[in-house]
């Protein structure tokens, strides 16, 4: 039987749960493949060798993550980045906009309830900039999403185990959404605490919807409940930078409505899941942007 492993780095565990959310099919799957490593369901502690497909959940945040990742790469024939953290750095990537030392100082010494704070330094790994796993190892396939749809994980696994490349969506969430496309320019920007008009494109109403710059495959679940897409599936395939993509589309709206551009604030809209793999991250790593 082929061997699969789920290895977890900096993650919240949601992608692992999405995998378990195949529900009854899990029992069938466990009869067809050998699940050799999965911190949530299997007792084995070390990563065995000769893994056919390794699903990596989570991005890189510590030196320990890098070690684990490299070990997984050396032991797996096919390595898959599962989830937006592994693919793009995910929401924790937003942490890269803040100086690391100040952040550690705040969390371990500065919060309201912390008493006699000390930054952990004994027997704990080094904390480094959040990064997608592709920064450290070669990635064979990506399944983005926060989390990805359960069926996407299952379908990708089945294809990869057969030695085939799984099909990838080619469109954006905008294409899957019944409310769109936007037909006219919005008059002003709206925040989501304002209820929308029904049956009208959210972007057209002025909400910052990432639909046009986000990979399809989820059925536009969030616009379906009247909430704008926040880009959790990352950029459309072949697009390099999700924030630049949406900015390209919305530049006039942004120009007329955003008086002062703030990376910390506006990254919540256009780089929520992909900051760690953005051009701005690139500029920061090269030393250009000053961190506060």
């Amino acid at each position, binding site marked *: 039987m082929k061997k699969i492993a789920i290895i977890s780095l900096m993650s919240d565990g949601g992608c692992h749960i999405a995998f378990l959310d195949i529900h009854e099919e899990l029992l069938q799957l466990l009869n067809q493949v050998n699940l050799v490593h999965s911190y949530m369901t299997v007792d084995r502690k070390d990563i065995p060798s000769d893994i056919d497909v390794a699903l990596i959940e989570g991005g890189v945040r510590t030196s320990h993550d890098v070690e684990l990742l490299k070990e997984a790469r050396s032991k797996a024939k096919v390595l898959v980045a599962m989830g937006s953290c592994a693919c793009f750095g995910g929401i924790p990537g937003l942490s890269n906009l803040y100086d690391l030392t100040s952040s550690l100082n705040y969390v371990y010494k500065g919060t309201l309830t912390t008493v006699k704070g000390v930054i952990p330094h004994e027997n704990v790994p080094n904390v480094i900039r959040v990064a997608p796993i592709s920064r450290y190892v070669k990635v064979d396939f990506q399944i983005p999403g926060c989390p990805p749809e359960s069926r996407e994980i299952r379908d990708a696994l089945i294809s990869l185990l057969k030695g085939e490349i799984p099909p990838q969506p080619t469109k954006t969430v905008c294409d899957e959404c019944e409310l769109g496309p936007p037909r006219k320019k919005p008059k002003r920007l709206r925040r989501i605490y304002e209820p929308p008009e029904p049956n009208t494109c959210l972007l057209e109403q002025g909400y910052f919807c990432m639909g046009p710059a986000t990979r399809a495959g989820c059925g536009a679940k969030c616009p379906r409940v009247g909430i704008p897409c926040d880009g959790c599936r990352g950029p459309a395939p072949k697009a390099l930078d999700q924030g630049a993509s949406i900015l390209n589309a919305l530049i*006039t709206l942004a120009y007329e409505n955003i008086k002062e551009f703030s990376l910390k604030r506006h990254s919540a809209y256009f780089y929520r899941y992909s900051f760690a793999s953005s051009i701005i991250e690139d500029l920061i790593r090269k*030393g250009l942007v000053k961190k506060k």
Partner: protein
Amino acid sequence: MKKFKPTIVAFLCRWSAYGVADIAGISRTGYPSSIRIIKVPCSGRVSPLHILQAFSNGADGVLIFGCLEGGCHYINGNLRAMNRVKQLKKMLNTVGLNSDRLEMHLVGSCNLNKLVNYMKEFTEKIRKLGPNPLKLKEGW
């Protein structure tokens, strides 16, 4: 001290500015050697990503030339590009770059002198501003 020779990436629309630059190149007029030209089908094709990538890779300045108002082959690509540049200039400071390092002009297909003058003035402005701050970092 060696005089700083800027590297400037210029996106030129193939319907107007590119042809003009071609002629400038062939004729005695010439244009500043700092200018590295990239042909685009329309100035509207240039995205914020391209501009930021140019700076990320070490360009000291970025210039964009589009067609005159009303003259865009794709109706209003040039105007969209002008808006993009206006907005991006606002944001460049946030990423540590002087907004003067980005400029856009609309030129007709006959105005050789205007084009070359814009290029010369921009090159001089960038020379005075100095190199892209990235280049001052270690390991460049």
